[in-house]
């Protein structure tokens, strides 16, 4: 493969009359971790949601491995793009194991036993082998989010999207979730993360994309961003955080 794995190409997005993304270009190479940061309302989450078409875009294109996401069957494309949400969204009527095994079984048609075995391995990978039979209501927020990550991984996606996955967690539970994401990064998973955890962004991100008011204002290597953003907007944003 020559080009980037994920390509946002001149993406415009509006909700009714309100435009929220203006001509956004972002490339994500295979195995790369891109961290999208920026103030609230800058369009970071919307950008992620456009990638697997939870939101439809009005202009531009988004490509996965050169293939337009917009022109591909939506259920097809979503199997290749895993997504983890701020509010976990685990299925409360299913156990942790069933949450992870459900989509492989129903969408890919894997035999139940096989799906469950794979699910059990994934729960082990996120450190929750002992909670397989627990319902989400009996798990802590951090545990629920780790199950949600396992659930997304179960479809063997080519890229994972993380939408502020630690924002709804108690501070002492953030670490366990970030550890899992770091593990994925170490395994070479391609990821796009929207986060407010700057320390984590610095640690795990290969590149930083700074967004403000629906536009990309800075796009740079993680180290050079934290050493000193090249744009004034970037400097402003960082100075408010540090």
């Amino acid at each position, binding site marked *: 493969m020559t080009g980037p794995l994920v390509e946002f190409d001149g993406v415009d997005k509006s909700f009714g009359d309100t435009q929220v993304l203006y001509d956004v270009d972002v490339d994500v190479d295979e195995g790369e971790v891109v961290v999208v940061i920026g103030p609230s309302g800058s369009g970071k989450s919307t950008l992620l949601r456009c990638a697997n078409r939870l939101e439809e875009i009005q202009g531009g294109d988004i490509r996965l491995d050169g293939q337009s996401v917009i022109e591909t069957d939506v259920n097809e494309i979503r199997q290749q793009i895993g997504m983890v949400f701020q509010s976990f*969204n685990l*299925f409360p009527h299913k156990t942790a194991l069933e949450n992870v095994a459900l*989509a492989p079984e*129903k969408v890919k048609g894997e035999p139940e036993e096989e799906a469950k075995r794979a699910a059990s391995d994934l729960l082990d990978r996120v450190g929750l082998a002992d909670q397989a039979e627990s*319902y989400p*209501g*009996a798990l802590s927020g951090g545990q629920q989010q780790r199950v949600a990550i396992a659930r997304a991984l179960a479809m063997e996606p080519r890229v994972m999207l993380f939408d502020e996955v630690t924002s709804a967690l108690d501070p002492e539970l953030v670490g366990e979730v970030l550890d899992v994401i770091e593990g994925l990064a170490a395994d070479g998973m391609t990821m796009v993360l929207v986060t407010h955890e700057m320390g984590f962004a610095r640690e795990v991100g290969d590149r930083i994309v700074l967004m403000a008011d629906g536009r990309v204002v800075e796009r740079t290597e993680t180290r050079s961003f934290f050493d000193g953003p090249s744009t004034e907007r970037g400097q402003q944003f960082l100075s408010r955080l540090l």
Partner: protein
Amino acid sequence: MRDRLVKRVGEVAAGGFVLAIGGLLAWILSTQVDYSLLASPLIARRFAEAFFLVIQIVVISSLLSVSLGVLVGLGRISTSNVTGRIAKGYVEFFRGTPLLFQLFVIYFGVPRLWATGEFPFTDWAIPAAIIGLTLNHGAYVGEAIRGGIDAVPNGQMEAARSLGMSRVMALRQVVLPQAWRNALAAIGNDQIILVKDTSLLTVIAVPEIMSVFRNINSNQLDPWTPLVWVCVLYLAITMSMSQLVNGLERRSDWGSDSRMFGRLSGLGSGDDDGGEEA
């Protein structure tokens, strides 16, 4: 201190109410009821026949109205404008006109659409009753299901779709099981009303419980004796029905929300006599 006073006043009022009603009931039961008539095999047999007929009508109409209600609820949330409007119109009509009117339309009106002697049913009363109860309660169950679906957070649908499930699959696997749980109490409520609505069937010549009462009352000129039967029989059905609903609710409690509700109600009971357990 004030909370305690209000609580005490409530207890006194409730106790007084129970004493008054209990006294009245005891007086009626001791002076108005003819116990030899009450226990006579003739009356017992007629009420038993009516009772089993009502149970059959209830079971069939219940199953049909809940199935219909699921379809109506799904129609209400359909992405198709046409389906959505038809479901809405159906609900408006059957919720907005009296059941008695609907029963009259079906029992008296429908057979007249055939030429004299051509209508295929010789005993139309019971089929008409089942159709009427099903259509009427299908509308209420449909609204309960729609409410149950609306109460499932949007993130559930999004999470399911983001895994590659189609909308139909996401509804079936993820949204509906939760919607069903949300709607159970309301559906159970409606089905208990369905049981009581069978009393209207007396006016379309279904030999159900109230018609046995009317018959005995006019022959014996004794309302209270058959009324005791009527009361006991209806309560027998409705109380077993609430047991059934409770059982179903317990079964679909995923060991999660009970804890959450426990915690929430714990917050609410900051009450000075400390009697409640968290």
